[in-house]
């Protein structure tokens, strides 16, 4: 039987530590550099750059692992099977969730279920992906709260991705109106409200969906802002200017009890 471990002397320890230090430094440097560069760019270029961070990190980790393993273990098939089998068994029992998250993290990077700059919703938590880590994905909610979600959610929970790697995402402004009005005029007014928003991305369509309800008429104005990060300001702009434009035309809004009935 061949010896499993190499002669692990001081030089080998130093070499391993050196590889780990360089890999860590490289990962930190790459992430900082990409973040810095992304700060100068906008739109699709910014998202591409941000999405590269986890891929590069994975590449650096794999490369450093490939360099470290032969320093510790005699690189034969028998030894490798024994080593990875033991590690796998230990991880499976003791660190099941941790290992699951790590693997899900690799799958997330490969499948691109979410990338930096995407707007996702997991278990009712909505926000922008700011960091795809080894174990967790970090999102920043509109309330400026950082939330870390383990990648293992990927296995069972639905993940809603609002923009899927694109800079644009659809926003919806709701208008609840008293039923006594000219719907065609209101529809045209709302179209113009979107068309005149400084936030509007003009290459995407503007749509107005009208639903007649027992309490009145529900309008949904759908349009896309230039950048996904503007979504709440865009929706606010549509709502504020939409209300003003409708009020100038004497359109009355549905009363509070009626809308409460809708919510119920």
């Amino acid at each position: 039987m061949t010896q499993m471990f190499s002669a692990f002397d001081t030089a080998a320890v130093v070499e391993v530590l050196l590889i780990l230090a360089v890999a860590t430094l490289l990962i930190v440097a790459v992430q900082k550099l990409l973040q810095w560069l992304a700060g100068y760019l906008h739109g699709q270029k910014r998202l591409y750059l941000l999405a590269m961070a986890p891929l590069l990190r994975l590449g650096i980790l794999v490369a450093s692992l490939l360099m470290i393993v032969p320093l510790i273990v005699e690189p034969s098939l028998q030894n490798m099977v024994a080593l990875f089998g033991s590690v796998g068994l230990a991880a499976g029992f003791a660190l099941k969730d941790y290992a699951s998250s790590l693997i899900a993290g690799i799958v997330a990077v490969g499948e691109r279920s979410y990338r930096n700059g995407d707007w996702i919703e997991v278990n009712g938590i909505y926000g922008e992906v700011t960091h795809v880590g080894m174990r967790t994905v970090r999102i920043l909610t509109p309330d400026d709260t950082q939330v870390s979600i383990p990648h293992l959610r990927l296995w069972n929970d639905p993940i809603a991705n609002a923009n899927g790697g694109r800079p644009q995402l659809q926003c919806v402004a709701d208008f609840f109106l008293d039923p006594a009005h000219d719907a065609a005029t209101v529809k045209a007014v709302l179209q113009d409200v979107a068309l005149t928003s400084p936030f509007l991305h003009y290459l995407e369509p503007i749509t107005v969906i009208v639903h007649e309800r027992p309490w009145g008429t529900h309008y949904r104005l759908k349009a896309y802002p230039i950048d996904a990060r503007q979504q709440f300001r865009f929706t606010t702009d549509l709502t504020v200017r939409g209300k003003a434009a409708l009020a100038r035309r004497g359109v009355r809004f549905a009363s509070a009890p009626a809308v409460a009935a809708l919510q119920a």
Partner: protein
Amino acid sequence: MTSCGFGEAARTMITEPHPPAQKQDSASPPSPWEFVRLADYRVPNPVGATAAFEKWASLKRIFRHPANPEPPPVKAEADLRALPKSRLRHLAGPIDWRCAASALDAALAGWPQSGGSDEAVKFVIGQPHCGHAEILEHWAARHRALLVEAPAVDRILGDHGHWLESWSATDRLWVLPHLEHCYLRHADGLELVRRLLERATSGALGRGVIACDSWAWTYLQRVWPLPQPDALTLQAFDGPRLSRFLAELVAGAGQGRLQFRNATTGKEVRLELAPADGAVSPEINHLAIHSGGNIGTAWSFWRSSLRAAPAQVEDAQEKSGEQAHGAEADADVVWVSTELREPVLPREGGEAMAFLLHGLLLHNGLPEFVLPELQPQPGHRLVACLLELRSLGAVILDGERWRVSASAYGVVREFLRARGFLRDHFLRG
């Protein structure tokens, strides 16, 4: 006064208040002014090293900080001074748009006189600082056409029936030089322009010419999709055209024994009235490419690049009192700086600045009082932003309207392009 490249007869012609159209003299070089269909517009293309230089300059702009906008000048240029205003006025005076009006006449080729069934309205689209309104005003004077002023802001936002009705009462040929001032990007600011375009294109307003800024034109395509394949625009000023234009500008000033020299290399910058393809100075080619064929920005850069040696400045200042026109100034070497001085917009300028600049371009300038109606920021912040942009040289107050300055136009366009804003189709990207 400059000639229009229509020979000596035309040179005399353009000094008359309403000169008749002239045929081009076959012996004279072609005019740099030409109107073409939008599809035939050709942006001067950088090739090889020039393209790489443009990319590098663009990359540097992204990372440059506004507090340190320009690299230090090369030693040869450090000793040079800006030209005295009087001399600058004679070497690079205001653009004479009457030449362009002659070119428009040639492009329309008898259309005003024909009462047939062809298009009732012709559209002329112009980039910012390319003088579309001035050209149309000259053209209107030449054809004794009715010059229609854009409505006031309150008319656009509300009572627009009267403005349209009063106009439609006439049968005269009419010219609307500022379509971009007939709408506002406001929920109530589009109805008038829709009705106007509907009536104009249907022929209900008679025969006329509408000029529109290129950014407004792009926006209005979303407001009232208007297929106008025959819309005309001023052809881009590539190297040869620009060389000829500048040569005419200098010749028109009556300067004798004048030489332009590159301030870095000392080589002569030749301005040719009839340059062969390969004979255009590299400085002029670079200027044409950098300005994207936009004659207004090219002219602005050219003016700001002219320098004189200190001795020449003093000499010229002494002479300026004696010679009102300075035509015989004996300082016959004018140095041309190789640095194109452009404002640097703050990277952290952000959304408010981008919205403001975009709004100004979409309307080819806006009065300050209407800005709060069109922008999501409150008035005091808009004023602060305007003042900051003015201090950077990015905007100017032209009459009552704030406009993006000619020297900043390229930078602002790139600033908005990088952020994904709607823009005109006249430049790459």
